[in-house]
């Protein structure tokens, strides 16, 4: 296995770079989308709230692979064409946004209504209260779920291989189809995912501790 790693690490690392790029863009953009969706669902008017609810239901209720195929293979029929990586990123953002919206909704609703009431009493508008008081608390509470989402996304991004985006899994498959050492190559690929994920989990735990506030987790 070591010899495979040594022989092919430039290709594998290039693939890993694409994997991380897809994951980072998808997850962070997904967070931004998720924030808007969750705020729309909780604080929006009936139309906005219902639209968001339906959107989330559709995205969470259909397989990611199907969504990816619709975007990459389906949309060109209507003149919309994306490069494989772009198509992958778009479908991952939409998917991650829908999931993150639900995580965020939970953490926003766990911030007591008294907090927003106190913000209003100082003369803040509802949206100022949401931005300066509710979200800073909700976002801290969502970090563990977000970490989970990021880890899922690192692994789910391997789905991009089916439309030929050159990420880690694709590079692995290309190497294996040339030297036929399927077991060894995929073991190396798996180990790379594992090491990267362990590193990220460690980083996020550190981040969570850094932004932690005394006693905050236990406040309701």
């Amino acid at each position, binding site marked *: 296995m070591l010899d495979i790693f040594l022989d092919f690490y430039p290709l594998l690392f290039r693939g890993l770079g694409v994997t991380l790029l897809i994951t980072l863009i998808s997850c962070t953009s997904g967070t931004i989308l998720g924030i808007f969706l969750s705020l729309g669902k909780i604080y929006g008017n009936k139309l906005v709230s219902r639209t968001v609810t339906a959107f989330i239901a559709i995205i969470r209720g259909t397989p990611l692979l199907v969504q990816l195929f619709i975007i990459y293979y389906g949309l060109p029929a209507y003149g919309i064409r994306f490069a494989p990586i772009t198509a992958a990123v778009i479908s991952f953002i939409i998917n991650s946004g829908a999931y993150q919206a639900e995580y965020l909704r939970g953490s926003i609703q766990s911030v007591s209504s008294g907090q927003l009431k*106190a913000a209003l009493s*100082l*003369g803040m508008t509802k949206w100022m209260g949401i931005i300066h008081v509710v979200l800073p608390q909700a976002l801290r509470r969502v970090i563990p779920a977000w970490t989970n989402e990021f880890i899922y996304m690192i692994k789910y991004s391997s789905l991009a291989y089916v439309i030929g985006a050159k990420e880690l899994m694709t590079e692995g498959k290309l190497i294996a189809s040339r030297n036929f050492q399927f077991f060894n190559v995929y073991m190396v690929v798996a180990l790379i995912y594992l090491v990267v994920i362990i590193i990220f989990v460690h980083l996020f735990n550190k981040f969570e501790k850094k932004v932690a506030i*005394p*006693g905050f987790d236990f406040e309701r």
Partner: protein
Amino acid sequence: MPTKHLLKIEDLHHSFGEDEVLKGISLALNKGETKVIVGPSGTGKSTILNNIIRLVPPVSGKIYLEDVEITSTKKINQIRQQIGFVFQDFGLFNHLTAKGNVMIGLTKVKKMDKKEAEKIAMEELERVGIGGFADSYPSQLSGGQKQRVGIARALAMKPKLILFDEPTSSLDPELTGEVLTVMRNLAQEGMTMLIVTHEMGFARTVADELIFMEGGHIIEQGPPEKLFKNPEHKRTREFLFKLTDLYGEGEE
């Protein structure tokens, strides 16, 4: 209708669903006055305070802050900047330090420069005797300290009056004492205050006027000594005497 009172409430009604909790409340507050509303639980005392700054919009009636009709104004946020509110459960922002809690209204609502806001925040925290806890988070403070941060937060906005919604009901007697001391000092400094409380000793010694409410009506209002010693209504006598029996005549 303009008025010379600082705060004036006319024929205020409020209902929660079918349940009418306020059945025509009228009262007025002059600058520098402290009025205390007392009465059995569930008689709508807190609802009045929530109605005043429209945290709960009233069903009908008119409320004025000086010449501005609060009940119809489009600029409710400007009114709320001028009326402080102290909550029973403190309402401190959990993600901010004591100082941050006092500053946020100044920096975000009044758009004050951070340095200036910090200076005011420290002054107000000193004023309520917890300057040493400026960098503590709410979870690190006792209930009494939390409520004093809540009062400092209201004071920092330089309000024309402050509404207190059962400010000591979540506190044990010792902590209640430290919060009441702060409120007593404010009254002496001439702050205008409308207070809902069950602290009869405090009401008796600090209030310029005591308002006894029951069943959504004001039964009787007047100087505390009169209500305690010589009330006009039987119900007032029963309520206040029961409390005096239970807790004595209060402070002093």
